[in-house]
């Protein structure tokens, strides 16, 4: 589904990603872990197409298309979804109206008819029950005055409505208490299928207790330095990121 090869990218001339290689297949859950400043959020932003980031080398293939050639809204149309670490507020714009516009824009991109209000409301009711989200939240202006937990739940609700092929969760657990993490993770788990994939970007292992990954990758200094199964996350949790740093330092010394 997604194939990243030798991806180099940065911001304002500063290289942050220094050769990322990663392949994600349908039905898989991948986790990217790493200390602060390792490039986790940069990777999420580059994949979603945030303009401030410059790609200097490498390629990203998404469902047979050159992802880097597509505008952010086209990437969304192709089925890529980013659950933001910091969802933005749009005062006065009702959350329902926003989601309806997004859904119909994506449908337009795919050459489908816009969904009528009745079908939309029916779908919304279904997903609301699934995501344990309240109607009152959706009538409010987009993310305005939402608590941290409400914002993240709203992200996952949007994911449920848009039904992406690949969902990237950027630090979705940050700022959430354990109950909120559980609700958000349950939502993600309910949306998992053999046809879609999830990329979880996180600093801490705790989210992975609830969204169990098939693969864990450790990002350090702009590169994936270690990959493994879900047990790698537990090892990181136990030993801290220093153990990775030490391993790398040792390897570099050997090379010299």
């Amino acid at each position, binding site marked *: 589904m997604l194939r990243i090869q030798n991806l180099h990218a940065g911001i304002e001339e500063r290289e942050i990603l220094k050769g990322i290689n990663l392949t994600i297949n349908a039905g898989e859950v991948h986790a990217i872990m790493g200390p602060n400043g390792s490039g986790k959020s940069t990777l999420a932003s580059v994949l*979603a*197409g*945030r*303009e*401030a980031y410059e790609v200097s080398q490498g390629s990203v293939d998404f469902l047979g298309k050159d992802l880097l050639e597509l*505008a*952010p*809204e086209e*990437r*969304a*149309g192709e089925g890529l*979804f*980013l659950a*933001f670490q910091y*969802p*933005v507020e*749009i*005062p*006065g*714009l009702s959350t329902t*109206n*926003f*989601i309806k*516009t*997004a*859904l119909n*824009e*994506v449908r337009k*991109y795919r050459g489908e008819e816009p969904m009528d209000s009745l079908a939309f409301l029916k779908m919304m009711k279904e997903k609301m029950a699934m995501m344990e989200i309240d109607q009152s939240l959706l009538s409010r*202006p*987009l993310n305005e005055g939402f608590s941290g937990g409400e914002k993240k739940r709203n992200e996952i609700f*949007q994911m449920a409505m*848009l039904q992406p092929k690949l969902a990237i969760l950027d630090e979705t657990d940050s700022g959430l208490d354990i109950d909120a993490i559980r609700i958000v993770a349950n939502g993600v788990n309910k949306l998992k299928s053999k046809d879609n994939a999830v990329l979880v970007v996180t600093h801490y292992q705790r989210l992975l207790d609830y969204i169990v990954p098939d693969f864990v990758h450790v990002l350090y200094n702009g590169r994936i330095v270690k990959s493994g199964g879900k047990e790698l996350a537990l090892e990181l949790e136990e030993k801290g990121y220093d153990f990775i740093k030490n391993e790398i330092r040792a390897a570099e010394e050997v090379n010299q």
Partner: protein
Amino acid sequence: MNDGLSAIEKTVLTDYKYGFVTDIEADEAPKGLNEDTIRFISAKKKEPQWLLDWRLKSYRHWLKMEEPAWANIKYPPIDFQDIIFYSAPKQKINPNSLDEIDPELKRTFEKLGISLEEQKRLTGVAVDAVIDSVSIGTTFKEQLGELGIIFCSMSEAVQEHPELIKKYLGSVVPPTDNHFAALNSAVFSDGSFCYIPKGVRCPMELSTYFRINAENTGQFERTLIVAEEGSYVSYLEGCTAPMRDENQLHAAVVELIALDNAEIKYSTVQNWYPGDKQGKGGIYNFVTKRGICMGDHSKISWTQVETGSAITWKYPSVILKGDHSVGEFYSVAVTNNHQQADTGTKMMHIGKNTKSRIVSKGISAGVSNNSYRGLVQVNRKADNARNFSQCDSLLLGDKCGAHTFPYIEVKNKTAVVEHEATTSKIGEDQIFYCNQRGIDTETAVALIVNGFAREVMNQLPMEFAVEAQKLLAISLEGSVG
């Protein structure tokens, strides 16, 4: 954040959809302004002597007045001798039925989305159609007449209801009020007259559609609405003009009078030609609008969506004379490219327990300048006056300007006056968030702007709210890249 926004700034030419010209023979006054011009207009309209005298008096006063220079707008001096002050399509004026209207004119209004064929018209909206200096027809007149409601052109009202015109014309905006009001009083041509009798709730929206068509012509309409005791009316005006390289002057006067327990809701969707991307052409919109809550428990509410004009200078105001009267002002003003707007309101609290509410939303894009200017005045005897003002500005890009000039004059200690103001920018983050959900940048801006203006848009009559939302989006088309 700044460099991010530069990406949102690339501008392409905005598409003004109403810029066509109707090719029709016109009956015009000679260029320029002097007493003969005024006599010409008055004679064309077969006016009584008192009205001609009123016009001439206004003109003589105007000669002694200076153009106001305090607004935050810049424009070359207006050459009043280079303007045609009266232009009317050569057709039968005051047609007996709508069928007699020149088909070319009917088509013009149809192109603008205004059908004069009543049966095709939204039931619930009566229209007076004004082109240049004359009204060409008013719909639903008979139906309204059965309720005692008068809805007709100003020229017709002068003929048919002189006692009402004599009583109320200039009673809220006297000819001496300001430079443009004096000019209008001297040369005014058509506008609408509405009279709602005691206790009648007008069952449909009344509306006037103003169209400037002729070249080198100014439009100087005059609208007067009188709501008798316990009556209610909702009125809406819309306006467009052809795209021309020269600036054209529009100087209107609107007067509203609400007696005891009466309510007038006045909405404007102003979409005069704003000029091109380089700032060439466009309408100079200098308008004086004022209402008086004459009676106790009366209410006047102004709602305006201002997207057009090269220059907008207008301050729809309310004189709160009756006790417990209420004044409201809801405004969305959009400026793009080189447009300049200096707009706001005046709320004058005179009666006891009067209330006013001001909600102003300014949206600036391109290299435009958008100013809110408002006065809240509480007189010595206006016990327990209350005012709440909210002025928000939204900037697209960093070459445009937003300004707020609130004036507060309180002479009574029991008054409570509140003022809130905010300025924000459309952020790269907001746009990207929308993009990531599949929404392109243009649609994203429309969503954000409509969200920003929602409180005001909600005040518009249902029939026009959707139209106005689209208009907001169109006005900002091309302001982002």
